[in-house]
């Protein structure tokens, strides 16, 4: 569904992503794990065209999307839920969600999606008329994911959904990610919390200083000694 080939991204002279390649197949949850500064978020931001790569090609459903504008990427159903939520604090929860359906014209469908999001996140329904900025961190993350769902994503890019959340909330968010995937949405997940990410993902790529150093199905990686030592907090 999504193929990234030989992608290199620079911030000025600094290379953040070095020649990485990976793919996401329809129906999967794929995760990119790695430490701070490994290039995970940069990769996601490049896929959704918020930054331009220096080299490499990104194809989505056999269409090259490397040179598209961010709004065109959204139009293809490639939806980015950015790091740090980026919800609009001055808009109500409902308006934030409506914003997620910005490119959709099917009014009935939008209302239906809104109901689905509220069914999935009852807490957002309770806070429907509250301003986004007054929500707790967990609720804001739910709102950010909900806003992504409002766009009817074919592929959802999730950037650090567990950031700043308590362990219980993190579990909750990951459970939600799992159900979203089970309902048919493909997911590319970027996480520092490798433990949780490997629980929910089918396959994983491990990034270190801008390179893919290891990849495979989640089960295999979970059992790998190096991964256990470096990312799962076990003493080797």
């Amino acid at each position, binding site marked *: 569904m999504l193929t990234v080939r030989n992608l290199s991204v620079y911030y000025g002279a600094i290379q953040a992503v070095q020649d990485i390649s990976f793919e996401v197949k329809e129906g999967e949850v794929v995760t990119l794990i790695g430490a701070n500064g490994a290039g995970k978020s940069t990769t996601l931001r490049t896929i959704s065209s918020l930054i331009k790569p220096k080299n490499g090609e990104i194809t989505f459903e056999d269409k090259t999307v490397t040179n598209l504008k961010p*709004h065109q990427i*959204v139009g293809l159903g490639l939806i980015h839920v950015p790091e740090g939520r980026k919800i609009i604090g001055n808009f109500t929860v409902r308006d934030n969600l409506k914003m*997620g359906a910005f490119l959709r014209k099917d009014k009935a469908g939008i*209302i239906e999606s809104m109901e689905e999001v509220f069914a999935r996140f009852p807490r957002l329904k309770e806070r429907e008329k509250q*301003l986004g900025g007054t929500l707790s961190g967990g609720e804001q993350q739910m709102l950010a994911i909900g806003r992504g769902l409002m766009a009817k994503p074919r592929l959802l890019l999730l950037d650090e959904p567990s950031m700043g959340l308590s362990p219980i909330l993190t579990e909750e968010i990951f459970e939600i990610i799992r159900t979203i995937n089970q309902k048919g949405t493909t997911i590319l997940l970027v996480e520092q919390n490798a433990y949780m990410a490997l629980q929910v993902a089918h396959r994983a790529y491990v990034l270190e200083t801008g390179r893919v150093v290891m990849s495979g199905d989640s089960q295999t990686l979970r059992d790998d000694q190096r991964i256990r030592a470096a990312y799962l907090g076990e003493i080797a």
Partner: protein
Amino acid sequence: MALKDGKRVLVFIAGVIAVYALVKLLAMTGFLNPYWLRILDQALIMTIGALGLSVIFGISGQFSIGHAAFFGIGAYSAGLVTKSLGGDPFTFLLALATGAFMAGLVAFLIGLPVLRLTSDYLGIATLGFGIIVKVGFDNANKVIPEMGGATGMTGIPQVANFEWIFIFCILSIVLARNLVQSGHGRACTALREDEVAANVVGINIFRYKMLAFVFGCTLAGLAGALYAHRYPFLHPSSFDFLPSIDFLIIVVLGGMGSLTGTIVTAIGWVFLLEGLRTVLGSTFVDYRGVIYALLLIIVILVRRQGIFGNKEYGFLAPVVRRKEGRNATIES
């Protein structure tokens, strides 16, 4: 639309008629002498221009410090039309359209390269542009003698009476309000609040910045065009840096994101300055800069969000969307 909205529109229309009648009454009884009527016209013209900047800066977050230049472009280009073709109502309307169009066109051309960058660059570009325009007006007589250059432009038929200005002011308010409350306006607000958020929901950032910028500068051009037909003397210094700051102060003072605030503050601002001029006499001009700075400092210290914050009132307040049934929300 919903009943509530319809009612508010009626109240607004009634209010407009009442204001008009009141002004006429005050003018007839001599309570408002021609001098203050002139100031009132100026306040309404200022309101039109300030609404433009309110959409650009207050609503869409695009920092522009050259608003008076677009006002000037509107004034001079409209003035040229009637100065050459005469001041009958048709030509006057043509002149207004020309002034508004020229300002919008120039805004579009500047926007093409600059609006792809962040808002700060627009600030710098419009600042520079404002200076260029002033120099252009100073020397315009070398190309078009009618424009007068540094000695100013005269001979424009003074055909813009209170009625015209009032009508166009109301029209501008309605246009700005409709834009801000449309999906397009929401997109502009979203990009002001967070460009990444706007990007990831599929808002074409460049297009919406352009929409706001061209719309706002067109209003500035319209205001300038009216000005040219109400004040017999156009001088380049009326359209340089300081008048641009006037517009900025109005938008910031009124409250970023509040059209209500812009309208009230624009009118209040013009009357305040005139009042000070009356009280302080000729020293006013010397102390104007001090007063500006003091006012801004006080507002930043006491009420950073501006007088109206981002709230709207009455006709300008967001519509309760009945279509969404019991889930209706009031957008703030």
